[in-house]
């Protein structure tokens, strides 16, 4: 079975011990059965158990292991080891723009505050139907590409506007979720949701540079959703 040595350059910072962050060179041997970057990280953790990173489902569903891999945000569990050239060092840093708790673990409080600010739940004041609130296949189709977000924060932390104004700009993940409910025909709070975003900061700080689209591990398109929100706002006033 082919073994391979992977070289890593990892961002290390333990606020209890370190005065400032530093990059640590470390190598780990992986087997041919180790397919993803997360497999290598688990081996790395076995070698040096002081390295801290989040992970859970290891199959791109929980969104826990978002990190900056060779300068691009992504999920360690979806990053294929075969795409990293032999002998080339893999540089791992925490998601940019969020406070570091330790090593590759970031504090996502601000990210989730913005997510919660768009009320990410169905608002419908009609009496509960006996079975379910129905939609036509076309109405349901509109939600595709919106509901699949796993809130890994890869997109928002790749967005310079979110770096500069994380407290005011909702960020691509939050705006994608906002459109998910604005587009939902079962939701009755469309106007309130649009009002909530009609601000120079919350939505309109997006300058359409599309970093979010480039890094989304689920292949979603927050920029398109943001464009649709703007479109609805314009149609509302004309």
């Amino acid at each position, binding site marked *: 079975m082919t073994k391979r040595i992977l070289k890593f350059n990892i961002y290390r910072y333990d606020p209890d011990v370190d005065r400032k962050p530093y990059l640590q060179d470390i190598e780990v041997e992986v087997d041919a059965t180790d397919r993803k970057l997360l497999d290598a990280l688990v081996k790395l953790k076995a070698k040096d158990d002081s390295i801290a990173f989040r992970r859970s489902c290891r199959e791109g569903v929980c969104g826990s292991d978002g990190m900056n891999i060779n300068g691009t945000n992504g999920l360690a569990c979806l990053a294929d080891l075969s795409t990293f050239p032999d002998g080339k060092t893999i540089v791992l840093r925490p998601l940019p723009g969020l406070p570091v708790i330790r090593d590759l673990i970031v504090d996502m409080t601000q990210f989730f505050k913005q997510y919660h600010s768009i009320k990410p739940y169905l608002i419908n004041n009609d009496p509960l139907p006996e079975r379910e609130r129905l939609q036509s296949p076309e109405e349901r189709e509109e939600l595709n590409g919106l509901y699949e977000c796993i809130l890994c924060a890869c997109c928002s932390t790749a967005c310079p506007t979110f770096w500069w104004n994380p407290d005011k700009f909702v960020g691509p993940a939050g705006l994608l979720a906002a459109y998910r409910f604005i587009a939902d025909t079962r939701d009755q709070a469309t106007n309130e949701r649009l009002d909530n975003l009609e*601000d120079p900061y919350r*939505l309109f700080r997006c300058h359409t540079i599309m970093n979010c689209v480039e890094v989304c591990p689920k292949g979603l398109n927050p920029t398109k959703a943001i464009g649709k929100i703007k479109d609805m706002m314009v149609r509302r006033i004309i």
Partner: protein
Amino acid sequence: MVNRKLVGAHYGLIDWLVQRITGVVMAVFTVVVGFALSEGVGSSYERWYGFMSSTPMRFISFLCIVSLCWHAWIGVRDTWMDYVQPAGIKLTLHVLTLLSVIGCGGWAVQILWRL
């Protein structure tokens, strides 16, 4: 003072829309002037004077100046909003930008109407 995050000013959409509309006006002006130049309007001062002082050109060039100023104000203010955090400095930069834009716009109109 408590440090509440203040958002909710409802001019985001209007400014975004204005920036696009003024962009279209400037693009139309550029095409018109480019076409006129290709037709040799810039070959002599008299021809250029006649072209720019015609009523349609006065109309469209005034619109272009207003559009440029409005577009520049929103664009520069957006930059301050992105990168400048302290409210006092931000307000000062906003005011200075607005005054500069108004001054430049007035100056441009004076030049245009002197024709």
